[in-house]
């Protein structure tokens, strides 16, 4: 990223909105112990399903009320941001690394390497992503590391497919041929000449992928295939609240909003980056 490009993408309203939302979520995650009014796992069986503090019967000690075990909803939301962001950051970087390396290899060398990688991507794409991640979780077992691993193993194709065509376009440019003629090695050509040109696309995809990872983690914890019950997770909150949908609808709305706001932050940021950094990339896939 050159300095001259900085103001241009920071001037975009979408990038700013996205960054502000994410700054808020990251702050919640980092300072959870200081921000949360209660211990998120502390059960209080005489104060279950309390409404938010401003509603009738609300308790100011639990600003957003309590769940069916009397746990503080606000504290769970704040701590839940930790899991969501951990998974989003690590899993999307992992998926990016695998996807980007394979995309550059396939697009740059072409030929049978490209064919092989293309066929592997085809096989992956014939699995609906939800199904593949569930099956992987069955095989790997639950736990944060395995959630991350499953997302990496499912989502690297998102990077690979889109980046590969970009790499092919860049590889055909004259300056790449010039670099080869100057005697640059393949490694140096790819890392110094091609990768910088595909970098804007990479950053955009990374931002979108983080949103996808938040959703996948929520889905997995919703069906009980993510982390243990002692780690607050938004998907788990949704699953719990679903049992008491008539008595405590606010219990359901809070985690839904948390997931929505976080994913919206990543998507708006990604969209803003796409518009400012790479006008050619078309939105060809969900999320």
């Amino acid at each position: 990223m050159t300095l001259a490009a900085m103001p241009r993408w920071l001037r975009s309203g979408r990038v700013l909105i996205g960054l502000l939302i994410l700054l808020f979520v990251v702050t919640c995650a980092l300072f959870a112990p200081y921000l949360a009014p209660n211990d998120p796992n502390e059960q209080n069986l005489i104060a279950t399903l309390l409404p938010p503090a401003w509603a009738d019967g609300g308790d100011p000690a639990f600003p957003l009320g309590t769940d069916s075990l009397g746990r503080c909803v606000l504290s769970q939301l704040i701590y839940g941001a930790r899991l969501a962001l951990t998974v989003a950051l690590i899993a999307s970087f992992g998926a990016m690394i695998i996807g980007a390396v394979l995309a550059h290899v396939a697009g740059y060398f072409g030929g049978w390497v490209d064919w092989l990688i293309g066929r592997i991507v085809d096989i992956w794409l014939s699995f609906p992503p939800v199904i593949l991640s569930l099956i992987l979780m069955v095989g790997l077992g639950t736990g944060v590391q395995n959630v991350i691993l499953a997302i990496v193993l499912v989502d690297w194709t998102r990077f690979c497919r889109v980046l590969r065509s970009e790499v092919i376009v860049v590889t055909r440019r004259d300056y790449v041929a010039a670099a080869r003629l100057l005697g640059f090695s393949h490694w140096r050509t790819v890392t110094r000449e091609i990768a910088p040109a595909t970098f804007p696309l990479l950053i955009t995809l990374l931002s979108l992928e983080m949103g996808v990872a938040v959703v996948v983690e929520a889905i997995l914890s919703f069906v009980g295939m993510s982390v243990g019950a002692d780690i607050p997770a938004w998907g788990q909150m949704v699953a719990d609240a679903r049992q008491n949908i008539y008595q405590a609808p606010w219990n359901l709305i809070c985690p839904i909003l948390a997931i929505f706001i976080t994913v919206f932050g990543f998507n708006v940021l990604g969209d803003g980056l796409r518009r400012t950094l790479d006008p050619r990339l078309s939105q060809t896939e969900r999320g």
Partner: protein
Amino acid sequence: MFATIAKLLARRILVSIPILLLVSMLLFMILRVLPVDPAAMSLPPNATIEEIEAKRVEMGLTLPLPQQYAIWLSQVAHGDFGTSIQLRTSVTRLIGQTLPATIELAVLAMAIASALGIAGGLLLFYLRGTRSETVLDVGSIALLSLPEFLWGLFLILLFGVWFEFLPFTGVLSAGYQKPDITGFLLVDSLITGQFATFWNAVQHLILPAFALGVSFSPPIMRVLRSSLLDVYQDDYIHQARLRGLSERRILIGHALKNAILPTLSLMGVQFGFLFGGTLLIEIIYSYPGMGNLMVDAIRNTDLPIIQAVGLTYCVVVLVISILVDSLYLILNPKLRTR
């Protein structure tokens, strides 16, 4: 024209076979590394070690892995997915009972997604350059940020709990008989003339299908908008304008026809994703389709069902992509003359 289409179709189907083989191998391997013993699971808990060993031999679990895979594959090729460990019934029958419901849900959801997507895309394009476009555009990102299962829960809250407007569990209310001819509830109730049942089933389908459809519509909107923007650069649009055609006629009669093609191929990809999305919607709405079968099987580590359902999802996704490709070919004359 039909010869070229048939040739391309045949090639697509031929390519799908090795993909399916590899997918099945992958499924088999992932599930065989699990630290569970299907033999012990299919016997009562008081079975002796010798009995379990005998069962292992009987089930072929002592054979080398490639051989186990070959046996499983040859049974699958004959339509036999084995017997469920938990439910003790034929897995093929279980899939036969649940697949039609899932297809019904997916098709209706895709229709809703396409209608919303095309209408939204036209609207976004129509408002191009105005302030409302920016609002709508950010709105479509917001739509995109709410995944299908959250839409599902949100709609339950809104229409099921607060307004008590629509039912949100199962496929039929109590007291309705389920006709069983093809397995497709909507089709069956129409064939047998049970319109009350049909209407009840439609009411049950509205919320899940809408939740799924609305969450898959924003990408369609956005691609249609951008391909309309591309198409409007072409000379024939200026020419149509010079001929004095109204803007509406240019948009609907000329531009949309060309812009819909890239949208169509995206919709094919979307349909595949949407088909996977039915899983969560089915859980949320207690809808008796493959998704619920799969999640129950996962909770009970019922390997034969997991393998079979996983493979069925892949087959359906491949079939959808082949169908969309051939539709694309029929609609786009440029591709035929190769």
